C-alpha cells in the first residue's frame, strides 16, 4: 500500500495553555490535532490531570516538516520560558497525503 512520510509533533504542557496553544497552532497552518489529558512528572514536579489548574495535556499534530519546524520554533519562543512544556517530533507514515 502506498504511504507517505509526515512529521508528528507531540507537545506535553499545562492544560491552562490549551486555548492559547490551539490558536497558535491554527495560525501556523496546522490543519488538525489531537488533545488528551495527561499526567506525569518532570522538572516542574508532579503534574496531575484531575485538577484543572494543575493538569497536563498532550497535543499531537501531524503535518509536513516545514510546518513542524515553524511550530517548534514558535512554541519554543513563546512558551518555553514560563510553562511546563516539552516538545518532540518523529516521522510517521500516513495513508492520505492530502489530509496532513
Amino acid at each position, binding site marked *: 500500500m502506498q504511504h507517505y512520510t509526515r512529521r508528528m509533533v507531540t507537545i506535553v504542557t*499545562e492544560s*491552562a*495553555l490549551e*486555548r*492559547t496553544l490551539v490558536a497558535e497552532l491554527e495560525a501556523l497552518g496546522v490543519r488538525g490535532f489531537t488533545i488528551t*489529558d495527561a499526567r506525569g512528572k518532570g522538572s516542574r*514536579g*508532579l503534574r*496531575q*490531570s*484531575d*485538577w*484543572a*489548574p*494543575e*493538569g497536563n495535556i498532550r497535543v499531537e499534530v501531524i503535518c509536513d516538516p516545514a510546518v513542524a519546524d515553524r511550530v517548534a520554533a514558535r512554541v519554543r519562543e513563546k*512558551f518555553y*520560558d*514560563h*510553562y511546563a512544556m516539552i516538545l518532540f517530533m518523529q516521522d510517521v507514515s500516513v495513508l492520505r497525503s492530502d489530509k496532513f
Partner: protein
Amino acid sequence: MPNLDPVILFFLLGAFAGLAKAELRLPASIYDFVSTLLLLAIGLKGGVELARAGEGIPPVELAALLALGFGMPIPVFLVARHLGRLSRADAASLGAHYGSVSVGTFAVLIGHLAAQGIPYEARAPVWVVVLEVPAILAGIVLARGFSGDVAWKPLLRELLLGRSIVLLLGGLAIGWLSGPEGTASIQPLFFGLFKGILALFLLEMGLIAATQLGALKRNAVFLVLFGMLMPLFGAAVGALLGRAIGLSPGGILVLATLAASASYIAAPTAMRTAVPEANPALSLTASLAVTFPFNIIIGIPIYQRLATLVASF
C-alpha cells in the same frame, strides 16, 4: 464529643488520605459533576428566594462590592511584596487569588447557615459572581500595568464565561423564573441532597489540598502565616463594609467570609495565561492548602462572632 459538622470531617478524611498517599482518587469527571451540582444548587436557591422576596440589588451595594473586588488585591500585593519579598508577578498573582473568592467556601458557609437557621440576603450568590472577576483584573494590572501586551479581550471572555459564573447566574435565572412551586420537582436533587453533595466535594477538596501541600517548599513560613492572617484581615474589611451598606447580621457574615476566601479555580487559570512568569504553585498552595482549610474549619466560627459583634454597633 463535640458535634462536628460531618462535611468538615469529610474534608479531613480527604486530607488524611492525601497526606498518607492512600489509594483514593476520585475521577476528574466526578469532581466536575459534584461542583456543577453545587454551583447550580447555590444559584437555584438564591433565585427561588429572590422570586419569593422580589428584591433587587441596591446600586450602593453593587458599588461597594466592586470596590472591594478591585481594592482587595492592593493590600495583599503590598504585604506580599514588602513582607514576603516576593517578585512583582508573584505578589500580584497572590493579590488576584486573595481578592477573588472561593465558591467552595461559600458553599460550606451556606450549609452552615442553613443548619443554624441564620437568615441572610437571598441575593448573596450574586455577590459571589460580582466578586470573582474584578480582583483578577486588578492583579493583572498590578503585575503588568495598563500596557498593551495583555490580550484583554479573550481573557475577559474566558473570565466572564467561566464555569462558576455561568452556572451560578444560570441557576439564579432558572430559580427566579420558575419560582418556589416550579422548582419543587427538582428540589430533592439540588436542595435535599445539598449537604451530601457538599460532603463529596469536600472529600475531593481535602485530597487536592493535601496534594498541593507538597508544593509548599520555598517561602513556606511566609505563605502559611499569610494564608491564615490575610483571611482575618479580609473578614474584618468585609464585615465592616457589610455593616456600612446595611446588610443583615447573616449578610455581614457572608460578605466577611467571601472577603476572607481566596480563589483556586478562576484566578490560577487566568493568571497562568496573563502573567506566566508568576509561579503558579505559590498562590495556589497558599489559597488551596492553607486558606481554604483555615476558613472552613477555624475561620467561619470566628467570622460569625465578628459579624455578630459588628452588627451590634
